[in-house]
Every structure is written in structure tokens, then in C-alpha cells.
């Protein structure tokens, strides 16, 4: 209890310092929307911190195929709305914050853009981390005999996680022929988990909103969609187009078949949205809580100080919650994917009983 009180006072003191100093300055309004969405959305550079007027960021490679061919350059050249080789970052419109070029009639058009953006780089870093962790675990197994017992420490934890997903989620969800799908589902789980967790680390190389990006979740959901439908059994397709419902529900107007058919798409769609929305909302919530500190600067040191305490406490709570969510969302994605795949693997006998 004493420790917590001490920590509170410390937090308060520390946070009052810059707030007090700032209040002296000509307080410029903080555009919370800009800050939050600027973080949640992808970016061509990795902004780390702004000290005073100086922005510290890592420029990332821009790879674009525009009407004039392939362009590959550092994103530093596009800073502050600069135009480089006819390309610039749109300030507004449909392609806000994306690289665009102008066509002959002066309209903004989007070129083929495969730049290594912040999310892509973060994903690469996280993937390398994941592969490194997994291969390190695998190496442990290669170097030890079966008779030497189970691993301890980090490898043991990874084994526990892998087995939990493999035995409880995948085996339980898919059923007898789970082996074909296990590698994908395990990869998906750990890919999501590490990206979620790294997203919670506030400093470089963490902090990117990878799994809160709809493109990422879309690809994952697509993989599940493909695996579900490519290996669907006859019973699965029969249940979609000729389900066991009263005939009038499917003969003149194919109501149930239509619903079932949409179900094929809504299931992975729900997967995509669920993961995206959860992670994005988590990032947004934490950022908004932090933003409270800067918004209340104008209200004077007392309110600002007390709001800072509140914001920090809620921020800690949100971060702890997000840790939970990071795991739960990875787990839920994997579990639902295996359940969908399991449903598509239904054999006739199972239905008949």
C-alpha cells in the first residue's frame, strides 16, 4: 500500500513538471484526432518522438509504380508535403495521408504503392522476432533427447502455449484431420499474438498498430476463408445449399440457402472486423487517455495534475486490459478459425446421429 502511494506521488510530481512548464508557453491546441488517428493509421515514416519542433522519425523506403514507372526513394523526401518525382502525400480527400500523383487532368490518382510503411516494417520486425523465438525453441528440441525431459523457462512456456493451442483449440475445433491445418492455425495465433503484444510496447520497434490494420486482418481472414471452403466436404456444401429445414424455407424462395451462403462470407468477415476493431480500439483508448493529459493543460495546473493522475491510472488499467485482449483476440481468432474449418470438415455420419 505504501509503495503504491509513493508511486502515485512520484507519478503526480513527474507529470506535473512538464505540464507546469508547458502551461507557461503559448499553449497550442492539441489535435487529439490527429494524434490518435495518426498513430492508428499507417505511415510512410516511423515517427518516434517530437522534441520541441524537432521531429525524430525513421524514414522508410517508398516503393511506388506510378505512371512514370517504378520509383524507390526514402520517405524523408516527402516530408512536410514535399513533391518528389511527381509524387506527394495527399493532405485531404479520398487518399488522405497516402502517396498520390496527379494525372493529366489534375486529379489525384493513387499509384501502385508497395512501400515499406511503418506497419510493414513493424510486421517484418515482429515476424523476425517470432521466427527467431520459434526456431530457438525448435533448436532446443533438436539438441535434447526425449529422455531428458520437458524444457523449462522460456522454451517451456512456448511449449505450453503451442500445446494449449494445438491440443485444446485446434484438435478440439477441427476434429480428426486437424494435422493439415495445425501449422497455419499455430502460425496465425503466434503471428497475431506477437503483433498484438509488440503493439503495446510504446517505443520503437513496438507500438505499431499492425493487427489493428484492416489489411492485415483481411489477409488472415482470407486464409481462413480459403482453408474453410477449399477443403469443405460434401456435407458442408449440402448444408449450405440444401439445409435440413422445412422445404418451404428453401423451395420457392431459397431463403435458408441464401442466408447460409452469406454465412460463408460473414464468418471470415467477422473474424477480420473483430481482430481489427479490438486492437484498433485498444490503441485508440490508450492514446486518448494519454491525450487527456495534454488537453487539460489549458485548464490550469490543478485540474491538469489531477487529470494526469486519472489518465495515468486509467492508462495503466487499459494497458493491462490490452495485454489480456492481445492474448484473447489471438486465441479467439484461432479458435473460431478452427471451429469454421471443423464445421467444413463435417462428415455425413456426424450429422445423421
Amino acid at each position, binding site marked *: 500500500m505504501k509503495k503504491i502511494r509513493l508511486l502515485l506521488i512520484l507519478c503526480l510530481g513527474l507529470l506535473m513538471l512538464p505540464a507546469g512548464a508547458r502551461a507557461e508557453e503559448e499553449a497550442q491546441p492539441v489535435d487529439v484526432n490527429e494524434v490518435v*488517428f495518426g498513430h*492508428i*493509421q*499507417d505511415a510512410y515514416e516511423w515517427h518516434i518522438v517530437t522534441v520541441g519542433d524537432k521531429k525524430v522519425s525513421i524514414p522508410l523506403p517508398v516503393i511506388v509504380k506510378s505512371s512514370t514507372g517504378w520509383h524507390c526513394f526514402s520517405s524523408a523526401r516527402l516530408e512536410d508535403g514535399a513533391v518528389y518525382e511527381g509524387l506527394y502525400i495527399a493532405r485531404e480527400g479520398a487518399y*488522405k*495521408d*497516402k502517396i498520390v500523383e496527379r494525372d493529366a487532368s489534375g486529379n489525384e490518382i493513387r499509384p*501502385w*504503392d*508497395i*512501400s*515499406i*510503411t511503418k*506497419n*510493414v516494417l513493424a*510486421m*517484418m520486425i515482429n*515476424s523476425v522476432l*517470432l*521466427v527467431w523465438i*520459434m*526456431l530457438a*525453441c*525448435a533448436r532446443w*528440441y*533438436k539438441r535434447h533427447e*526425449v*529422455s531428458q*525431459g*520437458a524444457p523449462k523457462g522460456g522454451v517451456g512456456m*512456448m*511449449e505450453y502455449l*503451442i*500445446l494449449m493451442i*494445438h491440443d485444446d483449440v485446434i484438435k478440439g475445433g477441427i476434429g480428426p484431420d486437424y494435422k493439415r491445418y*495445425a*501449422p*497455419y492455425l*499455430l*502460425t496465425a495465433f*503466434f*503471428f497475431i499474438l506477437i503483433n498484438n503484444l509488440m503493439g503495446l510496447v510504446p517505443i520503437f520497434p513496438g507500438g505499431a498498430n499492425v493487427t489493428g*490494420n*484492416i*489489411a*492485415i486482418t*483481411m*489477409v*488472415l481472414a482470407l*486464409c481462413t476463408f480459403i482453408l474453410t471452403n477449399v477443403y469443405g466436404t460434401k456435407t458442408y456444401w449440402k448444408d449450405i445449399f440444401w439445409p435440413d429445414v422445412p422445404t418451404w424455407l428453401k423451395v420457392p424462395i431459397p431463403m435458408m440457402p441464401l442466408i447460409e451462403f452469406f454465412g460463408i462470407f460473414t464468418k471470415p468477415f467477422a473474424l477480420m472486423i473483430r481482430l481489427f476493431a479490438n486492437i*484498433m480500439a485498444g490503441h485508440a483508448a490508450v492514446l486518448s487517455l494519454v491525450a487527456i493529459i495534454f488537453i487539460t493543460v489549458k485548464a490550469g495546473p490543478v485540474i491538469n495534475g489531477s487529470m494526469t493522475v486519472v489518465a495515468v491510472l486509467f492508462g495503466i488499467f487499459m494497458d493491462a486490459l490490452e495485454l489480456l485482449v492481445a492474448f484473447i483476440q489471438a486465441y479467439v481468432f484461432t479458435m473460431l478459425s478452427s471451429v469454421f474449418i471443423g464445421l467444413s470438415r463435417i462428415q455425413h455420419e456426424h450429422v445423421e446421429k
Partner: protein
Amino acid sequence: MGLLTPDPGTVFWMIIIFGVVFFILAKYAFPVIIGMVEERKKYIDQSLEAARQANEQLAQVREETDRMLKEARDEQTRILKEASQTRDRVIKEARVRAQLEAQKALEETRLQIVAEKESALNDIRQQVAILSVDVAEKILRKDLKSEQEQLDLVNRLIDEMVTASKK
């Protein structure tokens, strides 16, 4: 809405990165780990089975030992019993033999005594006979000096013999 439209570039990189990660993990990481874990499961099952068998064998061995111990104890009792029986028998036999020997010796002694007695009696008898003959001779010599006396004796003797034969 920038948030809800997937960016093609991100999709492109996601497919590549996820594909590579999937390829590496599915080929080099998960099969190794899960294979090993399954092997370990098998190994544990085998170990348990082996332990169970060993326990069973141990129980058998213990039973065998108990049986052997019991047999040995029985054997011991039997041998002890036999030994005591033999001892008793030997003692008894020895006693019987000793008695017999003693009896035999006693018998022999008695026989000898009887024989000695007889021979002593015979000697005595002989001596008595000789003495009596001598005495008789002396008496006869003195008594049968006359003819008459001799005849009387003869007659008397004949009478005696006749009465003896008549009897």
C-alpha cells in the same frame, strides 16, 4: 474512410511476410516441437508401462522370495524334526542294545554260575560217593565178616529190589 479500406501495399507485404513466416514455422519449428512433444508423450507412456511391469516383476520376485523363504523354513523344521527323531531313535536303539548286551552278559554269567555249581556239585557228589564208598567199604568190611551176615544183606537187598520193581 482510410481505416476501413485495406491498403493494397499492406496486403501485398502481409501476404509475403505471413507466407514466409508460415513457411518457416510450418517447416522448421512446429513439426519439430510438436513431434518432440508427442514423442515425449510416447516415452512417458512407455516409461509408465515399464515401471508397471517392473513393479509387477518386483511383486513376483517378492512372492517368489517369500515362497522360497517359507520353503526353507519348512525344510529347516523338517530337518530339525528328523534330526531329533533320529537322535531319539539312536538313543533308544543304543539303550536297547545295551540292555540286550547286559542281559546277555548276565545270562552268560548265570549259565557259568550254574555250570560252576553243577561241576562243584558233581565234584562234591563224586567226593561224597567216594567217601561213602570208602565208608561203606569200611562198614562192610567190619559188618560182613561172617557168612550169615553176608547172606542177610543179599536177601534184604533182593527184597528191596523186589518191592521196588513191584511198585
